[in-house]
């Protein structure tokens, strides 16, 4: 029982380290899009791991924690996607290192199709 608790606590610690990495990435990354990636991907993983560790420690709330993990897995990507899309549409500056921008290419193709009609 005690070993199970320690395993859960270590998983929670790893999760909190991922949260820390996420917010360090938020500061260190060069432009908006990479910051969105760091801020939401890393912190989603961190939240999942820390909730998983708590679920191992407390078996009686494991069901609710499973539900919470499912909710977070559905909702967090949606918010980051909407934010990145909005940032792209209002023309936020990209970093110099950016190589490929599929959404812009797709938009250009779309516009040329519309003008051809």
């Amino acid at each position, binding site marked *: 029982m*005690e070993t199970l*608790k*320690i395993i*859960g*606590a*270590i998983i*929670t*610690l790893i*999760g*909190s*380290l991922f*949260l*820390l990495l*996420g*917010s*360090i990435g*938020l*500061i260190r990354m060069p432009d*908006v899009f990479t*910051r*969105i990636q760091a*801020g*939401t991907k890393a*912190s*989603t993983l*961190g*939240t999942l791991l*820390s*909730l998983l560790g*708590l679920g191992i*420690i*407390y078996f*009686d*709330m494991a069901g*609710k*924690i499973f*539900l*919470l993990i499912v*909710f*977070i897995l559905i*909702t*967090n990507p*949606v*918010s*980051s996607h*909407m*934010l990145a*899309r*909005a*940032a792209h*549409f*209002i023309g*936020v500056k990209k970093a110099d290192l950016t190589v490929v921008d599929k959404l812009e290419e797709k938009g250009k193709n779309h516009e040329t199709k519309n003008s051809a009609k």
Partner: protein
Amino acid sequence: MANIILQIAGGIMLLSLVLSLYRFFSSGTLVNRVIAFDTMTIISISLIAMITHYSGRTIYIDVALIYGLLSFLGVVVVARYLEKSL
């Protein structure tokens, strides 16, 4: 042993909350601030889960449930506001 590790984890979460607060104030476009806001909501969900451990009342996880389901809507609304299609 497990308690000490969990307290260290809570301290690290608080530290990351403060670090994302730094992003809120430096480099002042609105999108950056919204990213910081989003990260703070995600971190505070796991902070609420940690508080259920510290206070020892498992019933508090309901609040985290509601937070996990509703907190993303604020960010989605701001995104809609930014792309002018609210």
